[in-house]
């Protein structure tokens, strides 16, 4: 899948909670750590990226709510269920 598209979807999903600036910078930092680059990203990398961001959200909203927020994103981006 196209990296930019995946990143845009993920940022859009978490922006209402942590704000656009933090959503973008947190996603960028995790992309760098996971070696995600343009132009393509693998489903495994998407799953890892979503998992990293989900664990960051848990601190604010708890495991269940973070999982339910990221669940549809996993399905949509093919990062596992």
């Amino acid at each position: 899948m196209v990296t930019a598209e995946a990143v845009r979807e993920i940022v859009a999903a978490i922006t209402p909670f942590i704000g656009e600036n933090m959503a973008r910078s947190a996603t960028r930092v995790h992309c760098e750590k996971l070696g995600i680059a343009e132009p393509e990203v693998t489903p495994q990398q998407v799953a890892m990226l979503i998992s990293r961001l989900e664990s960051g959200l848990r601190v604010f909203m708890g495991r269940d709510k973070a999982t339910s927020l990221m669940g549809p994103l996993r399905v949509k981006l093919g990062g596992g269920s």
Partner: protein
Amino acid sequence: MNRAIDRVLWPALWAATLLFVAWGMAPRATVFTTVLSSGRLIAVASLVKLALLALGAAWSWRSGRLLDADNPVRPAWTLLAAGLACNVLGQAVLARYQLTGQESPFPSAGDVFYVLAYPLVGAALVWFLRAYNEAGYPMGSRAERVTLLVVTVVVCASLAFLVLRPVVLSDLPLAQKALGAAYPLLDLALLVPLAILLRMTSRFRGGSVGAAWMIVLSGFVFMCAGDVLFAYFTALGQTGLDPFVHAAYILAYGLIAAGMRRHLALVAS
């Protein structure tokens, strides 16, 4: 449910704050010498503060309980709830006097609870700082945080000098003087983690996490301002400025409660 609470809480908070500011600005206005007499307004302030503090403590406690047992901020919510509960007890002690038209003694048994609240709230704020720092979010460089820490300490130390001078030089009895100095000092100490947490959570601006924290932390800043004003006015013997102190506390406790409610909404499904 959240919207319903917001619809009541925010207008009530602004109305109560403005009422006390108006009382402070025009104490001889007819309304404040007849229907809303000084005794009644003090009783109203007492009940409003008690209710807001109790809501803040309950919502903070609930926010912690709804998080998973291994969530790193769960103990911080519990500490914060305990700190606010101490403030509830302190206010309840004062309410006994304020609701019966008696002058509140200073110091009183309530001060034991008010002082006890500081280490609990301070520990909670430091716990939040540590947990958020370890949550994997980009929070800026270490140098930036150290600079903020140093600047805050210097500003607080300068403020302490200005605020404590009239308290220390006043003719108040020793116990009043000691406690009058202790409150601003404890508040200024609390401002250090508050400033760092404000900076940290400002990175979440635009999101519900950032908004909730901004409201809670603004509340604590107003609480510190209320304590400093109280100590300052007491030392100067200016009791006519008490309405502004009530307004500062009502706004502080209201913001803390409203922010806690936002946090609870984040956790609750």
